């Protein structure tokens, strides 16, 4: 376990730990509340994005699977959690119907659709947070990897997958709240979602999930299986000829990554208070790729860092010049691809390495 924490990981986890202590303390304990509540929710959201970026880096950075549909797994995890939160509202909805969520009453439905059963139980919902994205990734990957769909074609069909899901979830008949999605949540496990203490708790949970996600990803990538993944990324055909069934390896890592994305989505939804089909939008999935590329592909920590930095920039930018954000993001992406192929993390590390020992930098770039 300790062997998984190299310098890079150690520094990041230490920083994350400090944040995990300081933010709730600044919000709940210190006089004058130096950390306002909206900041807690905002930072919690960033941590979920960071976990999502780590999930993508696992498949893209290490196995060369450029998924442009990872937002779908995130959204499905989010919907699974959202369904539980809807059930927990109970009779406190606008229509005060103890058996049906408001949007179903509004549509005139008489009973709960079969796929909503069980979501009143928190444990069941948690299981679905993992199983639904995992199962989709399994079925999708089974066909795609077996038919040896790779490269751009794979990227396109992942994008098509999330687009198709978005259209499906927009429809009221699907039973997931259509356009409006799921919202007006009241509490989770009896804790009021509006309370500062609940928000701080969700923030801490997000930080723990991110740390766990990083360690799981690190354990996978530093095992022999991780080396097989890199071999597949760099020379897929060669890897087959030494006896590895490439499709099985891809399937494994794709499913693990989808589950990780699902967990990120499940933590995200109670913190933002809503999940709607917009989360499936293809642009979201492309955004994840940009986070990873900016932070440093194939570094895990870089992916997390990229997600956080870009999200901070987005929050600031959209409040100053809302119309310019997409141009700024596009420009930044082009800049990084051309000038910082190793991403922000690569830049930081080469700075430090150069200052300390010139030889080390050469080794790192080799």
């Amino acid at each position, binding site marked *: 376990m300790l062997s998984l924490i190299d310098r890079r990981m150690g520094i990041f986890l230490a920083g994350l730990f400090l944040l995990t202590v300081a933010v709730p303390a600044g919000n709940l304990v210190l006089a004058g509340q130096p950390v306002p509540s909206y900041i807690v929710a905002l930072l919690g959201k960033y941590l979920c994005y960071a976990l999502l970026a780590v999930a993508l880096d696992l498949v893209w950075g290490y196995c060369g699977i450029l998924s442009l549909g990872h937002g779908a797994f995130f959204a499905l995890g989010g919907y699974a959690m959202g369904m539980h939160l809807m059930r927990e509202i109970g009779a406190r909805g606008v229509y005060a119907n103890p058996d049906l969520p408001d949007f179903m009453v509004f549509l005139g439905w008489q009973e709960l659709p079969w796929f909503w059963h069980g979501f009143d139980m928190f444990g069941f919902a948690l299981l679905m947070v993992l199983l639904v994205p995992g199962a989709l990734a399994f079925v999708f990957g089974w066909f795609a990897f077996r038919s040896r769909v790779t490269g751009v074609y794979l990227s396109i069909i992942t994008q098509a997958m999330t687009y198709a899901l978005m259209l499906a979830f927009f429809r009221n008949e699907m039973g997931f709240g259509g356009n409006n999605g799921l919202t007006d949540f009241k509490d989770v496990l009896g804790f009021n979602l509006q309370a500062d203490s609940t928000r701080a708790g969700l923030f801490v949970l997000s930080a723990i999930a991110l740390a766990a996600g990083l360690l799981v990803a690190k354990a996978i990538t530093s095992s022999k299986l991780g080396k097989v993944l890199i071999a597949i990324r760099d*020379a897929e055909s060669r890897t087959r000829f030494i*006896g590895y069934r490439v499709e099985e390896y891809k399937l494994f890592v794709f499913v693990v990554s989808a589950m990780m994305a699902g967990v990120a989505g499940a933590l995200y939804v109670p913190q933002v208070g809503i999940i709607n089909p917009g989360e499936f939008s293809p642009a979201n999935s492309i955004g994840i790729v940009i986070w990873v590329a900016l932070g440093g592909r194939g570094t895990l920590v870089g992916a997390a860092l990229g997600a956080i930095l870009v999200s901070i920039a987005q929050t600031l930018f959209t409040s100053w010049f809302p119309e310019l954000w997409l141009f700024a993001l596009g420009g930044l992406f082009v800049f990084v691809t051309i000038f910082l192929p190793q991403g922000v993390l690569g830049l930081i590390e080469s700075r430090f390495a150069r200052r300390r020992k010139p030889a080390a930098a050469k080794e790192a770039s080799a």
Partner: protein
Amino acid sequence: MSTQLLLDGVNRSFDGFKAINDLSLTVEKGELRAIIGPNGAGKTTMMDIITGKTRPDTGRVLWNQSVDLTRTDEAGSARLGIGRKFQKPTVFETQTVEDNIALALKEDRSVWATLFYRRSAEDTKRIGELLELVKLSHVADWMAGDLSHGQKQWLEIGMLMAQDPELLLVDEPAAGMTDAETMRTAELLRQIAGKHTVIVVEHDMDFVRALGCRVTVLHQGHVLAEGSLDHVSSNEQVIEVYLGR
């Protein structure tokens, strides 16, 4: 002796062009066999067919007189015990020389076994021996991408040996090697033949002579002649299409 590999009436065309044309070939267990022939004769395609990369249009390909190789995929043929060295050396460039060997080492290839694999002292020893054999011990921790062309050839040979295959398919191993290295490769292949079956494709006639084995001449996807090097090189047709150029 029993037959290791049998190709019988194999055909394969690409867009109407017959790359392999009624090819029949038998290789015995433990045999060392050289395949020569002009560019485009179908030597690499033949290896693609044996390893399941390319499916023949018609014909039989039998492994150990029982297993139908036209039904296996690349990983399947590797698991049966067919190892392959490519014409263009392909190693895992962003991984160390040692890791390249470790990845090829004969082990359980399933996802779970690979995920929980712990390197045993025995494996470490074996990797050390292989690195020694291909004279890459001093660069064991280099990235494979930083090796010279000749060193990559050796690394591929090391990876091939690491798999401990029953049959080795070796496509132009001497390209990019010095004369001394070429002779050392021939020596190595002669040593491992007997215990393993070896099929070598090579253009370098000195190398083929050094192998001192039965030679098959391929031309337009068909066997033109077969026998000792002296026998085939006195064949009129062979001189015309290949040696005489």
